[in-house]
C-alpha cells in the first residue's frame, strides 16, 4: 500500500506491506533508528514517537495507519543544531544510563509538558509510567522533566 506522511518536517512516500509495523517502517525503511524496540507489545515505551501531536507507541501502529500523519521522532526534536529543552535536561540531570529507553522516555516526557507545563512530581511519574527504564530508578528522569519545565517557563 502506498503511504504519504510527514516525518520530522519532511515528506515521505513509500509502498509498504499492510502488516508492516510503524516502528519497523521508521527504523528500516526510513532509516530513523533512534526509536527503539523493547517489547513489541506496547508495554515498554522505547518506541514512543509523536503522531499528530500525541505520544504513541509505534510498535503497535501499522505504517499504513500513519498515512497522512505528521510524525515527530527523537531525531526531529533538536532544531538549528540545538537540543530540545527536554534533551538538554536529560543530559544535565543524568536521565540516561544505557540510553536504550531514552528516546522514547524523552518523547513521553515532552508530551507531559505539552499537556501540562507545570506538572507535580506525581504527575511526572504518572506521565512516564508507560515507559520502562531498568537503569535509572526514574529519579533522575523525574528531575530532568522538572528541570525542563523550569527551563521552558
Amino acid at each position, binding site marked *: 500500500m502506498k503511504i504519504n506522511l510527514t516525518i520530522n518536517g519532511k515528506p515521505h512516500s513509500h509502498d509498504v506491506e499492510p502488516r508492516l509495523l510503524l516502528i519497523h517502517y521508521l527504523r528500516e525503511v526510513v532509516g530513523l533508528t533512534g526509536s527503539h524496540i523493547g517489547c513489541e507489545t506496547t508495554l515498554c515505551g522505547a518506541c514512543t514517537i509523536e503522531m499528530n501531536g500525541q505520544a504513541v507507541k509505534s510498535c503497535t501502529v501499522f505504517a499504513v495507519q500513519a498515512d497522512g500523519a505528521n510524525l515527530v521522532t*527523537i531525531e526531529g526534536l533538536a532544531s538549528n543544531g540545538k537540543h530540545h529543552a527536554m534533551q538538554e535536561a536529560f543530559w544535565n540531570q543524568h536521565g*540516561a544510563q544505557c*540510553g536504550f529507553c531514552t528516546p522514547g522516555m524523552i518523547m513521553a516526557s515532552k508530551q507531559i509538558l505539552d499537556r501540562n507545563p507545570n506538572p507535580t512530581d506525581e504527575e511526572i511519574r504518572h506521565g512516564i509510567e508507560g515507559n520502562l527504564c531498568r537503569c535509572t530508578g526514574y*529519579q533522575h528522569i523525574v528531575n530532568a522533566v522538572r528541570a525542563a519545565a523550569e527551563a521552558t517557563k
Partner: protein
Amino acid sequence: MATTITKTEKLIGKRIRRREDPRLITGTATYVDDMQLAGMHYASIVRSPHAAAKIRSIDIKAALAAPGVVAVFTGKDTEQVGPVPCGGSLPGLRVPHHHILATDRVYFVGHPVAVVVAADRYVARDAADLVEVDWEVLPAVADPEKALAPGAPPVHPQWPDNTAFTYHQEGGDIDKAFAEADVIVKQRIVSQRLVPVAMETRGVIADWRGADRALTLYTSTQVPHLVRTLVAGMLGLEENRMRVVAPEVGGGFGSKLNIYAEEALMGFVAMKINKPVKWIESRRENFLCTIHGRGHVDYFEVAAKKDGTILGIKLKLIQDLGSYHQLLTPVIPTLSVLMMPGLYRTQNIRADIVGVFTNCVPTDAYRGAGRPEATHGIERMVDILADELKMDPAEIRLKNFVQKEEFPFPTATGLMYDSGDYSAPLAKVLDLAGYQELRAEQAKAQAAGKLMGVGLCTYGEICGIGPSPATPAGGWESATVKIEPSGKVTVMTGSCHHGQGEETTFAMIAADELGIGIDDILVVRGDTAIVQYGIGTFGSRATAIGGTALYFALQEMKVKIKKFGAMLLESDDVTFEDGRVTCNKTGNSKPLAEIAGASYRAMKLPPNTEPGLNVTYFWEPPNFTFGFGAHFIVTDIDRDTGHIKIRRYIAVDDCGNILNPLIVDGQVHGGVAQGLGQALWEQAVYDDNGQLVTGEFMDYVMPRAHMMPWVESHHTITPSPVNPLGVKGVGEAGTIGASPALVNSVVDALSHLGVRHIDMPLTPEKIWKILQTAGKN
C-alpha cells in the same frame, strides 16, 4: 544537576554530565539492531514449547520451501560446533553437554531447536512457524526442592538425583559455637528467581568474509574479548581472525556477561550462507532464554549469646541452576557463601550448597550475583535474632560489626576485608531518619491500630572482582593511552561499559593526570580489533580495576612525556597543567601537543627511547574491594489492601572515593529500583510443567516510575587501600541494600502480630493474606 566545567580545573569529585549522552538523547547511538550490512539476512529461531521432551523428528521442508527462505538448520547440522561453555569449575561438577541447537532432547521452554534464515525479517519469523517438530513430551520439574525429592523427573537422565554439585565450606569451630550458644534462630529464606530484563534484548550480527577466514560478530555483550576467545573456540576459528564488537549496549545487569548459543549460531549461519546474518531477540525470548538471576532456597541458622553477640552462622543453600551451566552458573552461589558473614565479626561458619538442575532456563549473574542473596539472608537473620532477644536491630548490628581498627579483616570465609567503618553509615542513616522519633511514632501508630514499619540493612559488598585466582577468566583489566601527534588523547579500556558512564569517569581520570581538558580525550571500548585484550564490565569492577589500569598507564605515559619533554625543556622535573608541560626549575613550558609531535617526529630521540606516546598497562588487583553501607526504609501498610507504601528510603553508601557524584547517584537509584523490584514485585514463576507464567511485561512486574519511592542518597567515604584511586565500587550496592531493608521494615510493621518472616516478593495479595490470620490466634 551537573556542574559546568572550565577547561583545566581538577575534575575528580565533580558532578560532570556524561560525555556519552549527546548520542543517546538524540537517538543517534548505534545498538546492534540499528546496524544494516549489505546483503544482510535475518534469522528466526524455533524454540521448544515444552520444558522436557524428546525430539522424534524435525520436518523443515515447508519452511525451506517458503518464498524468501534461504536456509534452515537443526541440531544435526550444528553438532560439530563446540558446546556453550561453562567457565566455573567446582570439584565434582557435572557439566551437561550444551549444544547450540538441541539434538535429541530439550530441557527448558525456549530451548532452541532450529534456525530459519531469510532475506526479510518477517519472512524468517513466519517460516519459523512452518518447522514441524514431533515431540515426545516428558515429565518436567521446575522447583529446586521438588527436583531433589526422591522420584522427581530427572532433568538430565544420566543424573537422576538432579544434583549438579555439592559444595562445602567451613571456617572456625562451628560446632563449638552452636554448643555454647544461648539462643539459636533458624529460618528458611527464599531469594526468588528474577529476570534481568535489560531494556535492549540480546542481538547478534555475524559477518563472515570467507576469503580471509574472518568473522566479525556484533553482539550486545558486557565481555567482547571473552566472547571472541570462547566463540572462536566453539566455531573452530583462529581467535586472531575473529573480531567481536559490542556497539552501544542497552543494559546488561549480568545477563550479557555470558556466552550464548545464539552468538555461535549466528557465526555458524553466516559461514554457511556466506552472507551477514542478524538475530534480534524478541522480548518473549528474552524472558525465556536469557539467563535468570537468584533462585535460592536458603536455610539459615544463627547461634548467639544472650547479649546479642553472634557466635556462628550455618547455611544450607539450595541453588536452582536451571537446565545447563551458562558461563558462571555454578559459581554464583559460592559468592553468597563468601559474603554470608556480612559485616559481622563471627569467625565460625558452615555452608553447604546443593546445585540443582531444573527444567528452567539457567540462572547466572544478575546485578549483585550471589551477594544480594547472602545479604538478604544474614540481614533478615540479624533482625530475627534481635526480635528473639528483644534487642534493637541497630544495637545488635553495632555490637557485631567488624571494628574500624580491625582492618584489614580476615573473614571466616577466607576473604580479607580491605577497609571500613561500618558504624559510620549506620549512625548517619539513623541520624538522617530521626530513628528514636520514628520508634516513638511507631508505638503510637500501633496503639492506634496502624501498621508502620522501620527497616534497616547494613550490607557489605565484594566489589572490584577480582584478583585473577578468584575468577574463572582472569580478574585484571587493561588500558591503553595514546597521545596522537596533535596532542589529542585516546584511552582504550578493556572494560566494556554499557550505561555506567566510564566514557566520562575515565576521561576525568586522564584529564586530571595529564593536566588537559576533558574534550581532548576520547574513551574507546568494546571492539576487539581496536582495544587490547580486556575482561569486561561486571561485578562493580570497571572503575576499581579498569580505572586503576588506566591510572597506571597514565603514570607510565607521564614518564614518557617527561623524557620527550626534556628534549625541549630544561629538565624532566615538570608539572602537567593547562595542557602544557612546565619545567619546575625554569618555569618554561611547552604545550603537550608540541611534545607529542616531537615524540613522533623523533628528530632528537633521547637514548634508549622508542618514538611515539603509546602505553598499555594490564593491572592485576591484589585484593577485592569491599563497599558497605546502611539502607533504611519506613513503610506504612494498608490493612485493607495489603499495599505497602514506602514513606522514606534513605541510603548511605560507602563506595570509597567518589569520582563523579552524579553518576554514583544514578547507580544507587538504579540499584535500589532493582532491589525493590525483587522485594516487592518481581518473580519468575514457572508452573509445575516448566512453563514460564511470568514471561512478558504484562505478568512480570518491573518497577515503573509511579511505583518507586524518592531515594535519599548519602555517603560516607572510606578510601580503599587496594588501588591508588581509593575507589571501591557502587554498581550493585543499591540492589544489595534494598531488599533486606524493605522486608525488615514490613516484618517490623507486622511483628507485633506474630509475623517473623515473609518471603519476597511482598505483593499486596501476600500481605493481605497474612493480615487475615496474623495476630488472631
